C-alpha cells in the first residue's frame, strides 16, 4: 500500500495514479472529444498491395453533399518524410505500396457523408504483382517495391540495394576456424510472424487551424513533441505555433510513436476553418498499424565438449514492409542481441531489412527483442542438448562477467547475467521433478537504457497544490502515473496522489523525446528530479527565513516545511508560495546522453553498436504440453530483471507482468496474417491476443545493480521483460514434449507438427 498519509519516498510501492479514472470511465481519450462544430473525416485506402496510380480525380467527390475538404497528393507537399531514407510521401503519387495505404482524406459535415465522398474519389489503378515475402523480395529479378530506390536521399550508414533497405553486421574473430575446432556445431533456422502492437484504443486525432496560421492537434501519441516537429516541418509551419495536446492514451507499445490519424486530420484542417475529427475503426486501425517485424534467422554455433562457446554465425532478415519508417532499429538491435549475453570469441552477426508490399513495420515494444531472443535462446538450448549439458549450466558457464567486452568491444560493468539466471531458475524450481507432459525452459538476454532530451517544470502554488509539467506522455509505462510523481513527492515531502500532472501538451514548453527505448523514467525522471530539487532548494531557503531556523534543521514533510523534531514549528509549503507572491517553480532539463565507447572496426553500418546502462534479464517458464493436440498451457513465468534501482517497485512489477503476458501472446497465439489483398485479421476477433484466462502466474524478481547514468541508479525497465518469456516457453515446450517448432507463434498446430515430425523421423 502507498504511504498515503503525507509523504512517499522513492523505492516505495505506488499503485498507478491513473487507474481510478480509467476504471471509472472518467479518462478522456481523443475519440471522447466532440467539438460542436467539428467536421468528420474519412480516408480512402488502396485496395491493392501494389499498383500504379494512373490518375486521381476528386471532381465528383468535391460535389458530394457536405464535403468541405479533400486532401491528396494533388494538394499536399510533394516532399518525402525523413526516416533516414527518404522513401515515403504523405499521400502516394505514382505507386501504392500496401493494401490499406491512405490515398486521400475527406472532411465533411457527417461521417456518412465523408465516407460516401471517399468512395466517389476516382482512382484509376494498374495493379502490379506484389512482393509479399522476404523470399520474393530477394529473388533474382524480383519486382522492385521502390523502382527509384537509387535516387533516394539517405543518411550515413544506411544501406540500400533494390529491395534491401538496411544491412548491418558485427564481426569479431574467425568464425570458420572457431567452428572447425568445436566439438559440437549446430545449425538452426527460425521464422517470426509479424505481430500487432495490440493497444486497445484505435488511433484518433482532431486538428484545428488557428487564426494566427498555427495548428492545434489533439492526439493520443507516444511522442507529441516529435510529432509536432515532424508535422510543422512537413507543412512548413512555425513549430511554436503548432500545439499538440495529448489526451489519455489507451496503450501504445511502440505503435503510436509515428503519426497516423494526426497527419490526415492536419492536412484537412489546413484547408478549413473548423476542427477536423478523424477516428479510426478497429479495422482501419488494423490497416494503418505499425507491426512488429516478421522475418527469419539462421544460426550456426559451436562449443567445446567442456561447454565453452567458441563461435557463432547469425543472419537475420526482417520484413519491414512498404517504407523504412522506424524499421531500422529492429535490425540493429537484432545483431546486438544475437550472441549476448555470452562470451563468444568469434562472431559474425548480420541483419538485413527488406521491403515488401505490406504495412510499415515499426518499433513495437522492444523492437527485435522477442524475435532475436527467441532464435538465439532456442539455438543455445539446442547446442546445450547436443553437448548433453543442462541448459542452465551451459548458460552460466558462458555468461558475461564484469570486465568482459560486448561483441562490439564495449566494456561491460555491473554485469548481472548470472544473478538473473540463478534467480529465475530458483523461482521456477529448475531442479524439481515434473509429471510427464510438463517441462521448464529458460532464456536470458540483455537490453539498453536510453536517455533522450527531456524537460520538466515543477511548481508549488499558494493553495499548496503542486503542479508538474512533463513532455513525457503516459501511455502505460507507469512513468508519469507512478515514478515521476513519486520522485517529486520524495523531494518535496508531499503526497504523490495530490500532484496535478500536465503531460504532453506542447504549450507547456517542456520538450520530451517521447516514450520509446525504455527511456521514460530514465529521461523524464532526471528532468523532474532536477526541477523538484530546484523547488526544494527554494522552499528551504524561504523556510529558513520564515521559521528562523538553520536550513540543515528543516525538513519537508507532509506538505510542510518544519524544524526537525519540532512538528509544531513549521509552515505549509503553500504558505511559502503565498509569501513569495508567486508560485515557487523550478525547471529541470535532461540532456541526451551519448552511447558508450566501442570498437568501430568490429561493425559495419551500425548506428547502435554500444548500449547505455545495459541491463540483464532472464525468464523461466513452466508449461504443460498436450502432445496429441499441440495445446500448450503456460503455468508460470518467472522473470528476474536487473532494474538498476526500482524507483516505484509496483510499476516495475507491472511492467514485468505485462511483459510476460504480451510475450506469451507473441510466443503462442499472435500472428498477423496476410492474404493477396492485405492483412486478413485486422480485428481482435481473429488476431488472438492472450486473454486473462491464458495469463500464467508471473513472478517478478528485481535484481538491483545501480547504473551510473540513470536517476537514482535506475535502468530502463519497460522493454526487457517482453524479450525473454517467449523463448523460455519455447525451451520449456521442448523440455516437455521433446520437440518445439522454430516458428513463432508456436500455435497448437505447429507444436503438434513438430512433435509428430520428430516421432516420424525416429521411426
Amino acid at each position: 500500500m502507498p504511504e498515503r498519509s503525507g509523504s512517499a519516498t522513492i523505492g516505495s510501492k505506488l499503485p498507478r495514479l491513473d487507474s481510478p479514472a480509467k476504471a471509472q470511465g472518467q479518462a478522456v481519450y481523443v475519440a471522447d472529444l466532440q467539438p460542436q462544430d467539428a467536421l468528420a473525416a474519412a480516408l480512402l485506402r488502396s485496395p491493392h498491395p501494389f499498383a500504379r496510380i494512373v490518375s486521381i480525380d476528386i471532381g465528383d467527390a468535391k460535389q458530394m453533399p457536405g464535403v468541405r475538404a479533400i486532401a491528396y497528393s494533388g494538394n499536399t507537399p510533394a516532399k518525402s518524410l525523413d526516416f533516414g531514407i527518404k522513401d515515403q510521401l504523405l499521400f502516394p503519387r505514382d505507386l501504392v505500396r500496401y493494401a490499406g495505404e491512405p490515398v486521400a482524406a475527406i472532411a465533411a459535415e457527417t461521417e456518412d457523408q465523408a465516407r460516401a465522398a471517399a468512395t466517389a474519389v476516382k482512382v484509376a489503378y494498374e495493379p502490379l504483382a506484389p512482393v509479399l515475402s522476404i523470399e520474393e523480395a530477394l529473388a533474382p529479378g524480383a519486382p522492385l517495391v521502390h523502382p527509384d530506390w537509387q535516387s533516394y536521399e539517405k543518411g550515413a550508414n544506411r544501406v540500400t540495394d533494390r529491395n534491401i533497405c538496411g544491412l548491418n553486421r558485427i564481426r569479431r574473430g574467425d568464425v570458420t576456424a572457431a567452428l572447425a575446432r568445436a566439438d559440437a556445431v549446430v545449425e538452426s533456422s527460425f521464422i517470426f510472424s509479424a505481430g500487432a502492437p495490440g493497444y486497445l484504443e484505435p488511433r484518433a486525432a482532431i486538428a484545428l487551424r488557428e487564426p494566427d496560421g498555427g495548428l492545434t492537434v489533439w492526439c493520443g501519441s507516444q511522442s507529441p513533441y516529435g510529432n509536432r516537429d515532424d508535422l510543422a516541418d512537413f507543412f512548413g509551419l512555425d513549430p511554436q505555433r503548432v500545439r499538440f495536446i495529448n489526451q489519455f492514451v489507451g496503450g501504445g507499445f511502440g505503435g503510436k510513436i509515428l503519426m497516423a490519424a494526426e497527419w490526415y486530420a492536419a492536412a484537412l484542417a489546413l484547408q478549413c476553418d473548423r476542427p477536423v475529427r478523424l477516428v479510426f475503426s478497429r479495422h482501419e486501425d488494423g490497416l494503418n498499424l505499425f507491426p512488429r517485424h516478421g522475418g527469419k534467422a539462421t544460426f550456426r554455433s559451436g562449443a567445446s565438449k567442456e561447454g565453452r562457446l567458441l563461435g557463432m554465425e547469425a543472419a537475420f532478415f526482417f520484413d519491414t514492409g512498404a517504407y523504412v519508417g522506424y524499421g531500422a532499429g529492429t535490425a540493429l538491435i537484432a545483431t546486438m542481441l544475437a550472441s549476448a549475453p555470452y562470451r563468444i570469441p568469434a562472431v559474425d552477426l548480420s541483419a538485413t531489412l527488406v521491403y515488401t508490399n505490406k504495412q510499415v513495420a515499426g518499433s513495437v515494444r522492444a523492437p527485435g527483442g522477442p524475435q532475436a531472443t527467441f532464435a538465439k535462446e532456442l539455438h543455445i538450448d539446442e547446442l546445450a542438448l547436443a553437448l548433453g549439458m543442462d541448459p542452465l549450466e551451459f548458460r552460466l558457464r558462458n555468461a558475461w562477467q564484469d570486465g568482459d567486452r560486448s561483441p562490439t568491444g564495449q566494456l561491460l560493468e555491473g554485469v548481472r547475467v548470472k544473478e538473473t539466471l540463478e534467480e529465475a531458475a530458483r523461482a521456477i524450481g529448475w531442479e524439481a521433478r515434473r509429471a510427464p507432459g510438463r517441462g521448464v525452459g529458460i532464456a536470458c538476454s540483455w537490453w539498453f537504457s536510453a536517455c533522450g532530451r527531456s524537460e520538466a517544470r515543477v511548481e508549488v502554488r499558494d493553495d499548496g497544490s503542486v503542479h508538474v509539467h512533463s513532455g513525457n506522455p503516459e501511455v502505460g509505462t507507469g512513468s508519469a502515473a507512478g515514478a515521476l510523481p513519486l520522485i517529486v513527492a520524495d523531494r518535496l515531502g508531499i503526497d504523490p496522489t495530490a500532484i496535478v500532472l500536465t503531460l504532453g501538451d506542447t504549450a507547456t514548453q517542456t520538450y520530451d523525446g517521447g516514450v520509446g527505448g525504455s527511456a521514460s523514467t530514465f529521461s523524464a525522471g532526471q528532468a523532474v528530479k532536477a526541477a523538484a530539487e530546484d523547488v526544494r532548494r527554494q522552499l528551504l531557503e524561504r523556510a529558513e527565513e520564515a521559521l528562523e531556523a538553520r536550513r540543515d534543521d528543516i525538513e519537508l514533510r507532509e506538505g510542510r516545511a518544519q524544524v526537525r523534531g519540532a512538528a509544531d514549528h513549521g509552515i505549509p509549503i503553500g504558505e511559502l508560495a503565498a509569501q513569495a507572491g508567486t508560485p515557487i517553480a523550478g525547471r529541470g532539463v535532461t540532456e541526451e546522453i551519448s552511447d558508450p565507447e566501442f570498437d568501430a572496426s568490429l561493425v559495419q553500418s551500425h548506428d547502435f553498436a554500444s548500449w547505455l546502462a545495459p541491463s540483464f534479464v532472464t525468464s523461466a517458464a513452466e508449461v504443460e504440453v498436450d502432445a496429441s493436440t499441440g495445446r500448450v498451457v503456460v503455468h508460470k513465468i518467472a522473470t528476474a530483471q536487473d532494474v538498476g534501482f526500482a524507483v516505484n517497485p509496483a510499476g516495475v512489477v507491472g511492467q514485468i507482468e505485462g511483459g510476460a503476458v504480451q510475450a506469451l501472446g507473441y510466443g503462442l497465439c499472435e500472428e498477423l496474417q496476410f492474404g493477396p489483398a492485405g492483412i486478413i485479421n485486422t480485428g481482435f476477433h481473429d488476431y488472438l491476443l492472450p486473454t486473462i484466462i491464458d495469463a500464467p502466474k508471473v513472478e517478478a524478481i528485481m535484481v538491483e545493480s545501480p547504473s551510473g547514468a540513470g536517476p537514482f541508479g535506475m535502468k530502463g525497465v519497460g522493454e526487457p521483460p517482453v524479450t525473454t518469456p517467449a523463448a523460455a516457453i519455447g525451451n520449456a515446450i521442448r523440455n516437455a514434449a521433446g520437440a518445439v517448432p522454430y516458428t513463432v507463434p508456436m500455435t497448437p498446430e505447429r507444436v503438434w507438427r513438430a512433435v509428430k515430425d520428430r516421432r516420424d523421423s525416429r521411426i
Partner: protein
Amino acid sequence: MQYFEPNFVDEALVLLDRFGSGARLLAGGTRLGFALRSDPRDVAALINLKRIRELERVEERDGTLRIGALVTAQRIATTPVIREHAPLLARAAGSMGARQLRSIATVGGNICSGDPASDLVVALVACGARCEIAGVEEPSRVLPLERWLDERATGVQAKELIGWVHVPVTQHVAAYEKMTQRRAFEMALVAVAFRAQREGAALRDVRIALGGVGPAVLRARGAEAVLSGAPLSAASAREAARTAAERDARPRDDARASAEYRRHLVTTLVERAIRNACGDIAGIAS
C-alpha cells in the same frame, strides 16, 4: 433502418411478414453485430426479440426439455434441469467465449449464426434436438434441428423464427471436447459431441456431432455405425475415431488451421470423448 421491440411472437411474425428480406432478428447481438457492421445497407428493420418473455422459458415436460430461443449460454450452463438432463449441452454452453459473451449470447442466435463450429449446435445435434419454429406461413412446426439447418443452408430464408428447442430426456452417457488456440473467446477449431445409450458394455443410439470440419455442423455417421449395437472396446473406439476423421469429416485448409491438422484433431477428440463418456468400460480409460 427501423427498430422494433415486439412483445409477442405473433408481433414479431407480423414484422417479418412486412419487411421480408429486409428484416433482421436481434437476440444477443453478439453475432449480428458483425454482419450489420460489414453490410448494414439492405437492412430495413431490426427486430429485437428481447421483450418476448415466453422465449426465455426453460422447462421439462413429458420427457422433453424445452428451452426458449432467448435463453443465454450462461443460463444453459448453470440451470439445474439442463445440467441434469442435458449435461452435454450445459458443458458446451459453459465452454463458449467467456463469461461476458455467455451472459448475452442466446441459443436461438447460436443456431442461426450459421457457424460450422457453434458449440450449442454441435451439442444439440448430438442430443437429437428438435426445434419448434414459428412462421408466417405455418404458425408452428417441430422438426429435427439437423433438417432445419439443412433448409436454411439451401438458402430459403422463410419468414420464420426459432421459438424453442426440444431436447429428448433419456438415460445416456455423453462428452464434449473442443480445441482452440487460446483458452477463451475463440470459436473451436474442432468440436466433438458424443452421446449414446448404454446397455452394459454395448452402445445404442450413438450420436456424434462434429464442428469445424465442414460447411456446417456434421453428424459422424460412419463413426456412429462403428459403435452402434456392438460392445465398446479400445479398438472400436479407435476405429470409430479414425472413421470420423477419415470418412465423416470434410475439413478444408483455412487461415486458422490446415485440413490435415483438423482431421487429426477429430481423431484425437472423438477418441477422448468416447473415453470420457465410457471410462468405466474395461480397457477404455486411458
